[in-house]
């Protein structure tokens, strides 16, 4: 049953831009943020809250811009290389960050991401400072497309990736390695006594989450056509955590539902008022106070009781 619902949801998403073309950009961005929020959600399983994941989002987006500047002009290659880049940055940062827990983990992630942000904003010669860097339209399998056509290709590619990567992450979370994450949350010492290296479990999770954030960043960079340091600002990281919580930490679809919900709320709110953060902030507080399972929990609750 859940498979049918998920398939129907993906189908609806695929058909929506046909009915309302302006939605295509919104949906592409929502999926991109969904990937990043999924990364945050993976770490939330282990009870680790990262207020710094926008760094990986931005790192991959910058990687796309730099690669394009260096002459790489193929969509597939750009995506693969930039996600690898995000994963590498994640491995480097994760190797020392996963030693910390609770609020210290959150603070250190924030510190690292703010160093990254400040460097991006200040190294004018390299990154273009706060003006950012342009991301040109790349070729798709050697075919040079116009911008509108490319944006459509990007949207359907993101949608496909959402399904494939989502299934892969689902598998990862259901594997012993994934279950070890919740075990870290419950009782870390017991896990060590069982002979499972917590450090390795968390480092793998950290690299996976960084790569997911990186994939989101690469897609966002390509969709927007420009990368700016604000991608890595702490409020962007806060929004990612917000999406992960909105979606609930229930599962993989939660992150994407959260992102879609937020982006659609944004699109609806800006037509009424400029102060959409007001609405988002209130929604966030209401969700946390009254629906701790997240928006996803509304759908998942029935399933849980029927078991």
């Amino acid at each position, binding site marked *: 049953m859940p498979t049918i619902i998920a398939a129907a949801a993906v189908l609806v998403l695929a058909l929506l831009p046909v009915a309302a073309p302006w939605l295509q950009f919104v949906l592409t961005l929502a999926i991109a943020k969904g990937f990043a929020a999924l990364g945050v959600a993976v770490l939330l399983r282990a009870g680790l*809250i990262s207020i710094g994941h926008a760094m990986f989002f931005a790192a991959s987006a910058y990687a796309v811009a730099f690669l394009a500047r260096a002459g790489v002009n193929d969509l597939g290659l750009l995506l693969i290389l930039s996600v690898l880049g995000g994963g590498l940055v994640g491995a480097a940062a994760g190797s020392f960050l996963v030693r910390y827990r609770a609020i210290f983990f959150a603070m*250190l992630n924030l510190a690292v991401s703010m160093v990254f942000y400040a460097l991006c904003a*200040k190294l*004018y010669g390299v990154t273009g400072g706060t003006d950012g860097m342009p991301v040109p339209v790349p070729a798709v399998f050697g075919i040079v497309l116009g911008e509108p056509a490319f944006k459509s290709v990007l949207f359907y590619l993101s949608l496909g990736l959402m399904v494939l990567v989502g299934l892969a992450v689902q598998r990862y979370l259901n594997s012993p390695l994934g279950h070890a994450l919740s075990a870290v949350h419950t009782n870390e010492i017991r896990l060590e006594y069982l002979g499972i290296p917590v450090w390795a479990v968390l480092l793998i999770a950290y690299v996976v989450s960084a790569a997911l954030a990186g994939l989101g960043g690469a897609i966002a960079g390509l969709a927007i056509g420009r990368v700016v340091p604000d991608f890595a600002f702490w409020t962007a990281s806060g929004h990612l955590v917000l999406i992960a919580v909105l979606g609930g930490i229930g599962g993989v679809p939660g992150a994407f539902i959260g992102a879609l919900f937020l982006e659609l709320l944004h699109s609806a709110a800006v037509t009424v008022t*400029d102060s959409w953060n007001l609405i988002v902030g*209130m929604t966030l507080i209401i969700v946390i106070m009254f629906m701790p399972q997240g928006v996803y929990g509304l759908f998942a609750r029935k399933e849980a009781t029927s078991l």
Partner: protein
Amino acid sequence: MLNAVIPLLLDSLASAALIFFAAVGLTLVFSVLRVLNVAHGSLYSIGGYVAASICLFIASRQFNPYWSFLALLFSAVCVAAIFGPLIERGLIRWTYGKSEAVQILITFGLFLILEDLQRVVFGVQSFYEDAPMRLLGTTSIGGVVYLNYQILLIAMALLVVIGLRLLISHTRLGRLITAVVADREMAQSIGIDTNRIFILAFSLGVFLAALGGALATPTSGIAPGLGADTMVLAFAVAAIGGLGQIEGAALASLIVGLARVLAIYLAPSLDAVAPYAAMLVVLLIRPYGLFGSVTARRI
């Protein structure tokens, strides 16, 4: 060399003083309520907006400009009296005992709300009112001209450090606060009204943030986005000093100020990186900050 360093040092001391007001409020709130208030930076900028509005009103009615100084203090008191109890009773108290993730997210939601409220109330243009700064004039030391206002800022920061220490260690209220910090349940069971302490401590934190914002407007003006920038800087300072440590926050703001001066000297483009780099280095070695300890959160 020395002639060039002293103005920079004074500049950095003055900016350290401004950040100190925000950081010490954050650290105070954390130590008593055990909640990391992500909306703290917004209260700083609200203090700035209110102060700038009152100062502009004084200037437009051509009252005696010296009233501006009183206005700076008055606006901080107003913001604290309104927002302190409102936020603590209305929102923060529901998060006591919840996980850090929940507390951070709830206050992040509050941050989003407050940032947009400022946009609605004060608009998106920047405010600039430097009457208090001009009134105080300048002093020339060794051929270099200083703004007296900056010296006032440093003196105010010192006053706050000493005042807070006296308040915590030598008054009845301070002892009550210390008792609540040490053991919340025990304090409650011997008859201390912990809710009152929470409201007072939170409002004091808001007052310090708003005072910082009010004192900052004459030097740098105020514009949207200031709250977010201040928040993360104040957080860096509070984390370096150790969350919950008042003197730690004072020393940490000096460290951040000095790191900025050094960065301006050695690599001017990197001055914005310096505070976060300092935070990163300190936290990697001592995650609980320079003065913090792993178990006890003392004040």
